[in-house]
């Protein structure tokens, strides 16, 4: 998996970023993960599946450059090449924005499959940014996936929705419906993690969440000011200067491509000198 020296380029891998619940950090994670993969030299494309409520373009900072979109390509109004927006910061990264106006029925299974198949010939990683909910956009984002990143906050409704989504991943997808196919490899990405609140017992721990969901952990992203800042300026957090959130996403990306990286909990606040002198480092 990690060997880069094989002569035949590996066929593009489709990874869905999903969660069920809204506002947990799907788009932030999709942007960070795709930028992280591209930064490592992998040809990566990130697709916005949230038809009608386009937002990935703003998070990636390419909202002024959208001409054609995913739906134009599915409906044959534009070539894929024309709809892909090449990132200005990393040349191995492209964005396929979604449509702002057209209705969700435009997202047909056949159309999505055709676009993904074409992307697979050119890209190593195809990151599908799922909309919230479990309606058509979310179903289409996960249907053709090889792997899934389930973004979860340590909070009851998010964990419940993640569980629901994990159920759909193992039943309502092509891999689930194809006999003999390996199931989708699903991993949990815990975001908005707040060590201080966990220490005081206010927030469920990583272990609590994993015990309930029973899937491997991809990473722990701390609640961080860097995330809002990055979205303000339209830069994936991984490219927006050093921060704990960026470091956490870097770790997650490394694990996603099969590297062994020790799990670490990065806190937003560093222990101060006084705490260090007392040896109370977290």
């Amino acid at each position: 998996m990690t060997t880069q020296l094989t002569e035949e380029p590996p066929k593009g891998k489709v990874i869905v970023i999903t969660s069920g619940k809204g506002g947990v950090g799907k788009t932030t994670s999709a942007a960070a993960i795709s930028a992280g993969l591209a930064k490592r030299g992998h040809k990566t494309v990130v697709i916005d599946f949230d038809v009608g409520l386009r937002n990935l373009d703003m998070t990636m900072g390419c909202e002024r450059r959208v001409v054609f979109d995913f739906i134009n390509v599915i409906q044959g109004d534009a070539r894929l090449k024309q709809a892909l927006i090449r990132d200005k910061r990393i040349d191995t990264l492209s964005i396929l924005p979604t449509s702002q106006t057209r209705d969700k029925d435009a997202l047909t299974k056949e159309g999505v499959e055709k676009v993904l198949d074409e992307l697979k010939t050119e890209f190593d990683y195809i990151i599908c940014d799922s909309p919230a909910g479990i309606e058509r956009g979310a179903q289409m984002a996960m249907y053709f996936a090889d792997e899934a990143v389930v973004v979860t906050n340590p909070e009851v409704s998010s964990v419940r929705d993640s569980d629901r989504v994990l159920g759909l991943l193992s039943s309502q997808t092509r891999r689930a419906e194809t006999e003999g196919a390996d199931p989708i490899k699903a991993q949990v990405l815990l975001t908005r993690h707040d060590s201080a609140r966990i220490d005081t017992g206010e927030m469920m721990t990583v272990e609590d969440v994993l015990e309930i969901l029973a899937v491997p952990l991809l990473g722990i992203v701390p609640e961080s000011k860097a995330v809002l800042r990055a979205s303000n300026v339209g830069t994936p957090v991984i490219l927006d200067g050093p921060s704990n959130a960026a470091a956490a996403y870097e770790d997650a990306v490394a694990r996603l491509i099969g590297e062994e990286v020790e799990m670490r909990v990065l806190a937003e606040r560093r222990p101060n000198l006084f705490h260090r002198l007392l040896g109370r480092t977290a």
Partner: protein
Amino acid sequence: MSFFGFSLKSRRPSSAQTAKDRLQVLLAHERRGGSPSPDYLPQLQSDIIAVIRKYVTVEDDGVDIRMENGQEVSSLEINIELPSRTTAAG
């Protein structure tokens, strides 16, 4: 407050200000036309291809349309890939 040549506010543009500016540009376009990328673009593209084809042979994907929406003006960039003469002759 800017006595003595310094102000209490940071000179560095804040990321929040950047966010506001970006939204204002984007929403101005979206409210006007419903979408930052006008719906006539696919039709415009096929019309352009049709006109070019009167004179030279171009592939369907030989026409590339890019748009950049700015605060004051938007620009439409159209690149047409013409077949090279050598291949056409040979």
